[in-house]
C-alpha cells in the first residue's frame, strides 16, 4: 500500500480479490449443497419436494462446480497471495496462544480464532468432498462403501450448521465484529476498527 489520500486512508485493504472469490465460492456452494442436501436427507422435505433424481443431480453437480471453481481460482488467481495467506493462517505466535486463553493480546490480520476457523473450514471442505465422492462412487463399486461414510457426511453437515450460525452472527450482528463484513465484500475495512481488533497487522502495513 503506497501513499494514501485522506479519503482512502479511512479504510485499509484486508482481502484481495482472490481471497474474496475463495470465500464466496465456498459460501455459494455451501448454501446450494445444504439446501439440496437437506431435501435429500430430511424425510419431510423429501416427501414435499419429490424429484429426488433431479435434486441429487443438483447436489452432485454443485459439488463438481465448486471443485472446478476452486481449481480455476488457483489457476488464474493470485497464487502467491494465497500461499502467503496460508502461511499467515498456519502460524500461531505467543500472542495468539494467549488470545485463545481469553487474554487480550494484539492480533495480526487474522486473530487466533479466525486461524482455527480457517483450518477447520479447509479440513471440513476436504472431508465433505471425500465422503461425498465415496457416497457417489460406493453406489457403483462396493469396495468403496464404508459404514461410516453417511455418518461422516451428515456429522460434518450438523457441525457446519453450528459453525455457520456462529459465523453469520459474528459477521452480520455482533457489534464488535460485524465491521469485518466490509472486508469480505469490498475488500477493505475501517482503519480504526482494524487498529482495535488487528493491531499488529495495521502497524505493519
Amino acid at each position: 500500500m503506497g501513499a494514501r489520500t485522506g479519503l482512502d486512508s479511512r479504510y485499509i485493504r484486508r482481502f484481495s480479490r482472490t481471497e474474496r472469490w475463495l470465500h464466496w465460492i465456498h459460501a455459494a456452494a455451501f448454501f446450494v449443497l445444504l439446501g439440496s442436501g437437506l431435501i435429500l436427507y430430511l424425510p419431510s422435505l423429501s416427501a414435499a419436494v419429490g424429484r429426488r433424481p433431479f435434486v441429487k443431480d443438483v447436489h452432485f453437480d454443485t459439488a463438481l462446480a465448486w471443485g472446478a471453481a476452486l481449481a480455476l481460482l488457483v489457476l488464474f488467481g493470485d497464487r502467491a497471495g494465497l500461499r502467503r495467506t496460508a502461511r499467515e493462517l498456519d502460524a500461531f505466535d505467543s500472542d495468539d496462544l494467549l488470545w485463545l486463553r481469553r487474554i487480550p493480546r494484539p492480533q495480526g490480520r487474522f486473530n487466533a480464532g479466525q486461524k482455527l476457523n480457517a483450518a477447520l473450514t479447509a479440513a471440513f471442505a476436504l472431508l465433505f468432498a471425500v465422503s461425498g465422492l465415496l457416497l457417489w462412487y460406493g453406489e457403483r463399486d462396493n469396495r468403496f462403501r464404508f459404514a461410516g461414510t453417511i455418518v461422516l457426511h451428515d456429522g460434518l453437515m450438523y457441525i457446519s450448521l453450528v459453525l455457520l450460525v456462529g459465523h453469520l452472527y459474528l459477521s452480520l450482528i455482533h457489534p464488535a465484529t460485524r465491521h469485518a463484513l466490509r472486508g469480505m465484500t469490498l475488500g477493505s475495512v475501517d482503519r480504526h476498527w482494524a487498529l482495535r481488533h488487528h493491531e499488529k497487522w495495521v502497524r505493519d502495513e
Partner: protein
Amino acid sequence: MTSVDTPGDDPRRYGRAAFLGVVATGLSSLLWAEPAWRLIAQPLMNALPPSLFPNGWRIYTVASSMPSFDPATWRLRIDGLVDRPVTLNYGQLLNLPRAEQVSDFHCVTGWSVQHVHWAGVRFRDLLAAAGPHAGATALTFTSAERPYVDTLDLKQAGLADAMLAYEMDGLPLQREHGAPVRVVIPEMYGYKNVKWVERITVTATPETGYWEQRGYDKDAWVGRSNGSG
C-alpha cells in the same frame, strides 16, 4: 515477510496441525463412526422430531415425484400365474389376517434402523384367495413409483418375518415409507423392500429388479451380498 512474526517470537505451525488433525479424525471415522453413532447418537435422535432429525431413515426414490395414496381409489392387483386374479381395495386388505413384528431394517448403503414395529399381511394369507399355480416360483412387486420393481422368490416371501406392511411404528404407513403398503423382508437390504406396491404378479421365473438391472445382487441377504460377507 509475513506480518505475524514479531522479533524473537517463534510461531508454531498450529494451523496445519489443526487441519491435519481434523482430516485424520474425519477419515478414520469412516471406520468407527457408524458403531459410535449407533451407540451414542441414535438413541438421542429417536427422541427428537423425525421431521428435523430423520431418526435413521433415508428416503430414496427414483422417480420425479413421490406417489400419493388415496384410500378411495387405491387398489392392489394380484395376478399372473394364479387361478383367480384378485383386486383388493384398502379396506379389504386391512381385513386380511393381521401380523405384527419388530425387526431391523438395513440399507445396502450402510444405514440401519433398529426395532421397527411393523403390522401387515403375510404373503401366504395375501395370496390365498388368488391361488398361485403349481409352477409359480416368484413374485414381482410393481411400485406406483415407476419404473421401480423388484422380486422375491416364493421361499423368500414365505419367510416367517416377510410381509406386506401397512403400519409402521403404530401408524398407518407414511407416504415417504411407501403408503399404503410396502414389502418388508428384514433379512434383505432395503431395495428388496418395495414401497408403494400396487401390483403383485406371480411368475414362473424371477424378473430382474430395478437395482438389480444396475448391478446389485438379486438375493440381497443382509451381510451376505453386494460385496460383503
